[in-house]
């Protein structure tokens, strides 16, 4: 088995809500290979963003992450790390809202140049050239001119490109994407996805891409992890998961995505609501909403079970889904 770039085992995020501890991320384990794009899909509140942010120690105040995180920065076997060790060295992140992700009091060129100046000791002029080069790399037209602009003078798509350039300035081996296309309109979204795919190949960079949009993820990712109520319920190659889901939640997610083919009757929502983190159970948390739920579903404890080399599902009755 090839050596992984990133290994996350049994990640748990605990937070305080009105004095009571809740666990919005509850035992997430995943691995990532070099140059791979992994997608994490799930509804709001499924813990996908917290999972991503805890890799870099960016939890909201009061949040505590436990679990084993390993990262291979030098090509050797993955070694345990604390988030501050990979800040500026190996892992970068881009965010959802391009408006709040760029410092409004800095010209975008200076913002991109900041990392190289601090970490690589570049001169002001060299760092500026590097910033312009990065802006060109991420497809900002006339970068020399736009490097002198302020964030508010750029469109949403350009801001997102600038954010990507900033993230790339420290030459990461892994780029974390926290719904970077959600706030953009569809045509710009498509451009950014194309850009990320291109950068992955050019810079041999791995990506973890978090989104609630399973269609976007299917298009972009090599592998896909589906999260529900703080846990991964299914993981495997993206095309296989989309064509042949092994967990009823994945199937229900797929059925709720509008498509150009079918009629509006084909579009099905999932009845009910995701459980509150304060009411998480040890059994299958999707069972109360599941169309295929059996009597033992809520009793049997949750466990992600391998179905083949690269696929795993937490559903204890995948045969029920297969019958339909």
């Amino acid at each position, binding site marked *: 088995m090839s050596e992984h770039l990133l290994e996350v085992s049994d990640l748990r995020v605990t937070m305080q809500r009105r004095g009571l501890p809740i666990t919005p991320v509850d035992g997430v384990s995943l691995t990532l290979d070099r140059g791979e794009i992994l997608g994490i899909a799930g509804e709001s509140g499924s813990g996908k963003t917290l999972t991503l942010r805890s890799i*870099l*120690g*960016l939890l*909201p*105040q009061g949040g505590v992450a436990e679990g084993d995180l390993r990262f291979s920065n030098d090509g050797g076997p993955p070694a345990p790390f604390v988030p*501050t060790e990979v*800040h*500026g*060295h190996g*892992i*970068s*992140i881009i*965010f*959802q*809202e391009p408006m*709040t*992700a*760029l*410092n*409004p*009091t*800095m010209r975008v060129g200076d913002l991109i140049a*900041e*990392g190289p100046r*601090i*970490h690589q000791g570049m001169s002001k002029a060299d760092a500026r050239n590097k910033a312009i080069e990065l802006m060109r790399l991420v*497809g*900002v*037209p*006339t970068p020399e*001119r*736009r490097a*002198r*602009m*302020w964030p*508010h*003078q750029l*469109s949403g798509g350009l801001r997102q490109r600038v*954010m990507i350039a*900033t*993230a790339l*300035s*420290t030459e990461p081996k892994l780029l974390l994407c926290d719904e970077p296309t959600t706030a953009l309109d569809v*045509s710009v979204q498509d*451009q950014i996805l*194309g*850009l990320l795919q*291109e950068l992955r190949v050019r810079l041999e960079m791995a990506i973890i891409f978090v989104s609630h949009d399973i269609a976007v993820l299917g298009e972009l990712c090599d592998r896909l992890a589906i999260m529900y109520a703080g846990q991964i319920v299914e993981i495997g190659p993206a095309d296989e998961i989309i064509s042949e889901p092994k967990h009823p939640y994945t199937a229900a997610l797929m059925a709720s995505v509008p498509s150009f083919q079918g009629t509006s009757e084909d579009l099905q929502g999932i009845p009910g609501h995701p459980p509150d983190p304060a009411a998480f159970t040890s059994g299958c948390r999707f069972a109360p909403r599941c169309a295929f739920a059996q009597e033992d579903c809520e009793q049997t404890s949750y466990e992600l079970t391998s179905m083949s080399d690269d696929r795993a599902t937490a559903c204890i009755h995948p045969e029920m889904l297969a019958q339909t």
Partner: protein
Amino acid sequence: MTFDEYFPSPPDEGSSGQPLDPEGTPIDERSIWRRIPTKAKIGGAIVLLYVLVALFAPVIATHDPIEIDPITRLASPTAEHILGTDELGRDIFSRIIYATRVDLPLGFLGAFLPALLGVALGAMAGYYGGWVDSVIMRTSDIVQAFPAYILIIALVFALGQGASSIIFAFTILGWVAYARLVRSEVLRVRGLDYVHAARVAGLSRFRILRVHVFPNVISQALVYLPSDIVFATLALAAFSFLGLGIPPPTPEWGAMIAEGQPFIRTNWWFATVPGLVIVGLGLGMSLVGESAEEALER
């Protein structure tokens, strides 16, 4: 992929829609002047007038402000003495003009120094948190627990009368409001993604505070500053009125009001004009401060 295929000619404008020159700044410089509200222009003009009077006091004044003339005491306005003379025969007009050189700088200092201290402490408290935050904020609680004027009077008594004591007392007291304001702003900005991005870029905490947090929290404090200058000027005048401010014979508006008070029935202009001069400065500063506040809200 090429961006230009999607947008053959990239939109060449800022978010507000006005055209930009190659530097990326608005071309129409006059539009900035036009965007400044009339209120701010009037306020700015008033403040500028005071600054000019302070700068050119020797040119404007008709007499030496501390020259005593026992013959012409408490004179009514004449061509020689535009606003008459005081109890010691000093020219009131010249004293008011020269007092600008005392009150204006002290008013500015009495607002700037507390602001400086408060912004620095508030930013540290908000950004570093933990025991730094506790020490700074508990200290501010203690300061706030005292009645402001009583504390200033006590400090001035302890340190001795004079401008430096007053400024010191203002600083000890005035930083609290700025610290609280900036601290809460820092707590807000600290959770924004661009600060997260700066942390992930591996920048030092001090650099993040200086470059990414500080410039984004300072505007609130700046808006507060003009009204604080008004407060400092008024407080200075009040203390001089009480005999705790600037010692005689230095001309000072508050002290002049106190000196003129016994003669309010006969020489009403003696106390009234310095009072109106203070009101004028307060008006100018308030207009500037209010416009700044409105500009920030937009």
